[in-house]
């Protein structure tokens, strides 16, 4: 095991009943990186994270976290791990201070060290005024800051964040990501799951999950430049007619409406896709302006998940 890899998984799978929630994935997450899991609900993000921290036992496959086999050595890993659950899971009926004190004690921080660390997190995450308040009365953003403070009290080597910003306003999300960059600069590895594109784009590396499989992996830049599709924007007065006109074109991946524009993805195999689309529109008598543009992460996401589903579908019908 190389020292610069925090998490390594091979053939990791989890079956619930007859359904595979995670279907044999390989992972290599470098240390001191923010690694993102991007995927729709039910894509296996939470299940994977839960297997990585030993909450769920894999049906098959191996996991190595910070040099320890999981679930066998889960107890060792737990000392070096901070975990933020999808749902706020600190105690609503305890105050902010009591919650932090409890977590400090549970992680075995000695009393003077605990007091110092709590004071530090209080300043870092702007919790000072909230300390005597019951956690249940906090807003979404405040709860999230508290949860992050609690998960980082013991300065873990690895931070697992399961959709941490799902109940939070945009400003709090920005602040939250600023804090993550501070934490990762200290050498902590962060694994964060999300279904927000802008969040995924901030990660150092990214895996796109769909139906329990990793369908794309790399840095956000890599993913956007290496996308297996061309993106063309069609500006038209009549977007409905434009959409109808291009429906059925060979190699059409997807067409999504953004206001008065249609964002169209064409497979890479189609030569001069802009001309193909222009001809179609002209035949249908739709006046439109076409622009080739660079792929966004959303395009990557759509392409990766679509292709996979189409493949699964044809395989299904063939069988």
């Amino acid at each position: 095991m190389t020292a610069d890899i925090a998490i390594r998984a091979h053939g990791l799978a989890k079956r619930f009943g007859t359904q595979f929630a995670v279907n044999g994935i390989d992972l290599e997450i470098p240390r001191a990186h923010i690694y993102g899991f991007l995927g729709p609900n039910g894509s296996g993000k939470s299940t994977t994270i839960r297997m990585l921290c030993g909450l769920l036992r894999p049906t098959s496959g191996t996991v190595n976290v910070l040099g320890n086999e999981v679930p066998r050595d889960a107890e060792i890993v737990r000392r070096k791990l901070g975990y933020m659950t999808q749902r706020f899971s600190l105690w609503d009926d305890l105050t902010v201070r009591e919650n932090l004190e409890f977590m400090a004690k549970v992680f075995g921080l000695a009393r003077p060290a605990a007091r110092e660390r709590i004071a530090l997190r209080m300043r870092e995450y702007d919790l000072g005024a909230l300390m005597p308040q019951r956690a249940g009365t906090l807003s979404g953003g405040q709860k999230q800051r508290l949860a992050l403070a609690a998960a980082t009290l013991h300065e873990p080597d690895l931070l697992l964040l399961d959709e941490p910003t799902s109940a939070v306003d945009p400003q709090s999300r920005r602040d939250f990501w600023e804090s993550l960059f501070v934490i990762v600069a200290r050498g902590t590895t962060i694994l964060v799951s999300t279904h927000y594109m802008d969040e995924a784009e901030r990660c150092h590396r990214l895996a796109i999950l769909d139906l329990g499989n990793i369908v794309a992996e790399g840095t956000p830049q890599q993913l956007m430049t290496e996308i297996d599709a061309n993106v063309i924007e069609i500006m038209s007065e009549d977007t409905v007619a434009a959409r109808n006109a291009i429906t059925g074109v060979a190699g059409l991946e997807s067409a999504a409406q953004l206001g008065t524009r249609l964002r169209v993805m064409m497979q890479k195999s189609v030569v001069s896709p802009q001309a193909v689309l222009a001809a179609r529109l002209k035949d249908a008598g739709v006046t439109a302006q076409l622009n080739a543009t660079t792929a966004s992460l959303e395009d990557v996401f759509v392409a990766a998940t679509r292709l996979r589903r189409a493949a699964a579908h044809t395989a299904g019908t063939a069988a």
Partner: protein
Amino acid sequence: MISVARIAAVAHKEFLQLARDRVTFGLIIGVPLLLITLFGYAINFDVRHLRAAVLDEARSSASREFIAELEASQVLDVTQHVQSSREIDAMMRDSTVVFAVAIPADFERRLIDGQFGGNRPAAQILVDGSQPSLENVANALKQLPVFQRHGQLLLAPQRFEVRVLYNPERRTAVQIVPALVGMILHMTMVVFTAGAIVRECERGNLELLITTPVSPAELMAGKLIPYILIGLIQTTVIVAVGNALFDVPINGRLIDLYLAALIYIAATLTLGLVISTVAQTQFQAFQMAFVTMLPSVLLSGFMFPFDGMPRGARLIAQALPLTHFNVMVRGIVLRGAALTDLSPQIWKLTIFFVIALGAARLRFRKRLD
């Protein structure tokens, strides 16, 4: 490695939450107070002052004296004087009275006949058999001196002497209050602990807790410690109130009582623990807790004497902690027994504790699947 600091952390958190949850906290102290007053005052097996109707067809001095003596026994309060047996039927049916005495016109004749071997009853007692315990009252009434005196004016025989030990005045409170300790502890220990653990599961706290270094044993111990203290407080409240309000004596040593309570608390806590590992929601936990509650109340000798039960029921009762604790608590509080006299019960409760703890430990895993 079990860490005392982590157990203390969990216990401290549990105390804080308990202190905040005013309703639960109120129930923990309020329920014993409510039940002890309820059972102490309302539940009364020595039935008195029953509403009774009298049909006196004899209208003689003997019959009047007989009625007066019946009333003097305080078992009956004659509220209705009627003229016909049909009136008695009607009053029984609509529950105006639960008791009736019919004295025939030839009352005195029958009394005299009785002395010379006649077997016609001198008077008739009618009881509402649809209500529990009343029938026993009628049977007891048959033995009342008033009947004997009128029936056997000359003989006045000497019968057996009955001495009721430990409770010479035959007060129900004396029997019930000590047993209430066990019932209330069962309720608190099983219901509240099962609920408290399942609640953390429902609210998602457990998902966080099990990714921390807290071990299952530490978690369980920390969560249960506050309830041990609560159990001892409840024991104190019941015994003290029972003593102050109902003159229930404390004949044994208090230390023995507390030790017995601790053993019983351990057994019932582990039962709550088992339930918490099976139940998915708090609602299920409460239902399961009540399923264990009912047989405990009915079969443990709490209300009905254990020795009078059929064999099957007694076997089931052996598996209920309350059965053994009732023997212990009545032994210590009323019969002045020492804990050392009660070793069979201690053993049975210990076995229950070990089995339940094993079951809970097997089922409680630091995993979600």
